[in-house]
């Protein structure tokens, strides 16, 4: 698919290969590393303060990549740069290249709306909009031109089933989403991101505002999404990263310097035999 093509209703609602939990099933499996996001020499500055310095990294299709490291080392900035949410920050300057599906996202002709359709994002704090559950899911669809009621209902049901929320909310779709519990709200936010059939999901500490039970449910959900979506997840929970991720990237910030990528590799490798002493120290809890 040409990444520059404007998003159309057909792109979201086409029936190829069923709706969600499927777009990538036909693609190569996770173990066959094919980069879908290529980050090359990414630097990121907020005014005078450099948040990230020359990060080069490939994110592989269908895999879960965990970004770990102490607070303030640029993990969230890295994540926001991938779907250009950094555009919202007035004095944010980006250097280097990010290519999603081989297409540079920061060139002038790249279509930011198409990018955000392809790259969904879930935040730390569950944020359903103050609308009904149904409207929460139909809002992004309407914005991308899917307006047929039957189609919207079908997609809503599918994504709610995908996140395991359908049985819990199917009889109260028209009540406000704010009445849901924290864990349910977070799953609704994931469902909302899935309505647009993204290929990539960025998750910024999606479990850290939830209680352990709800966190477990969301974590299981993320594991289930593996293979169907390419997931980049920021987490401070090392055990969680170890449980769910295929790849891990370790970021670190030195005194008065910018965040840097220290080590990137298979999760097992990072956690069991890290090459960099800093990584080892962080993993073992002696630093950071």
């Amino acid at each position, binding site marked *: 698919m040409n990444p520059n093509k404007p*998003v159309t209703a057909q792109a979201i609602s086409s029936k190829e290969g069923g709706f969600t939990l499927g777009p990538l099933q036909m693609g190569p499996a996770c173990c066959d590393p094919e980069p879908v996001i290529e980050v090359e020499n990414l630097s990121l500055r907020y005014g005078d303060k450099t948040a990230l310095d020359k990060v080069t990294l490939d994110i592989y299709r269908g895999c879960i990549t965990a970004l770990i490291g102490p607070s303030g080392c640029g993990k969230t900035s890295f994540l926001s740069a991938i*779907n250009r*949410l950094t555009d*919202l920050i007035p004095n944010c300057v980006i250097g280097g290249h990010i290519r999603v599906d081989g297409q540079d996202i920061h060139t002038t002709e790249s279509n*930011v*709306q*198409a*990018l*955000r*359709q392809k790259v*969904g*994002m879930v*935040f730390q*704090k569950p*944020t359903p*909009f*103050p*609308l009904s559950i149904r409207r929460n899911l139909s*809002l*992004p669809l*309407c*914005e*991308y031109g899917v307006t047929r009621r039957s189609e919207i209902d079908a997609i809503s049901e599918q994504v709610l089933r995908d996140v395991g929320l359908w049985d819990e909310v199917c009889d109260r779709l028209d009540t406000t989403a704010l009445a849901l519990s924290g864990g349910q709200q977070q799953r609704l*936010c994931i469902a*909302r*991101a899935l309505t*647009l059939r993204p290929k990539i999901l960025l998750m910024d500490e999606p479990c850290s505002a939830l209680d352990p039970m709800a966190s477990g449910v969301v974590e299981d959900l993320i594991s289930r999404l593996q293979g169907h979506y390419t997931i980049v997840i920021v987490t401070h929970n090392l055990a969680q990263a170890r449980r769910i991720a295929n790849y891990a990237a370790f970021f670190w910030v030195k005194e008065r310097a910018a965040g840097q990528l220290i080590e990137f590799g298979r999760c097992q490798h990072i956690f069991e035999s890290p090459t960099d002493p800093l990584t080892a120290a962080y993993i073992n809890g002696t630093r950071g």
Partner: protein
Amino acid sequence: MIWSKYNIFFRLRLTDSLLRGILSMGAVISALVMLLIVIFLILESWSLLGRISPARFFTDTSWHPLEGAYHLMPMLAGTLYASTGALLLAIPLGIASALFIVYYASPRLAKWYKRLVELLAGIPSVVFGFWGLTTLVPLINQIHPPGASLLAAILILALMILPTITLTAYSALMAVPDEFLRNATALGLPRWGMIRGVAFPAARTGIVAGIILATGRAIGETMAVLMVAGNVVQYPDGLFDPIRTLASNIALEMAYAMGDHRAVLFVSGLLLMLMVMMLSGMAGWWGRGHRA
């Protein structure tokens, strides 16, 4: 000095009950004043209301209070036309200005524009009336005499309630959490989609509260309207016809009214108050309905 726990709690209890006393006194006083005004209005109008059927205010043939004809309808209509017209102008303008300040203007421009609106809110109503009388009315007169008209009242009222609507909508929109905006942007919603789909529903209660407040002001505004509306008791045939509102009627005739004439003016005051009370009741009901 020994600070025992008892000591601290005792002092807390003392200041606490003191504060409580002061606060409840304030509350009682304001409630009492409100109540007294209502009782006063009812008492003053009772000399008439007790004798004639209230239907006569709506069925009498004309407004000649000295001859016992108490037709209030043309003035009620004048009030409603002027307020509705002003709201129709000021609501879209006010909300648009608020959206402009919050989402579209550069921070510098937004700051100055907001100051300007605040300044507009601070202009006394008699100054609005004065400006209307000397500038607006002659202007309208050139288009269609006599100038002092429903249109002039609508324009002046719109100008007067515009800052109320703008500033309340502004605070309501500013109170929309940033997370909503970030989430909406991450879903690829363009700015207008984000405003329409997320920010507006989130700010709705606050915006409606501002509109109700503005409506109350428009219905009750006396001085400025009196100065530009022409004050002829009639159903206007068009925007260029003079009107008289209930509030201006009270101000115009109170000085010389006596007996039943005086009482009927109090009746119209009561009517005005009922309208505003119904309005805020409706707003409360509406707000509850949407929060549930």
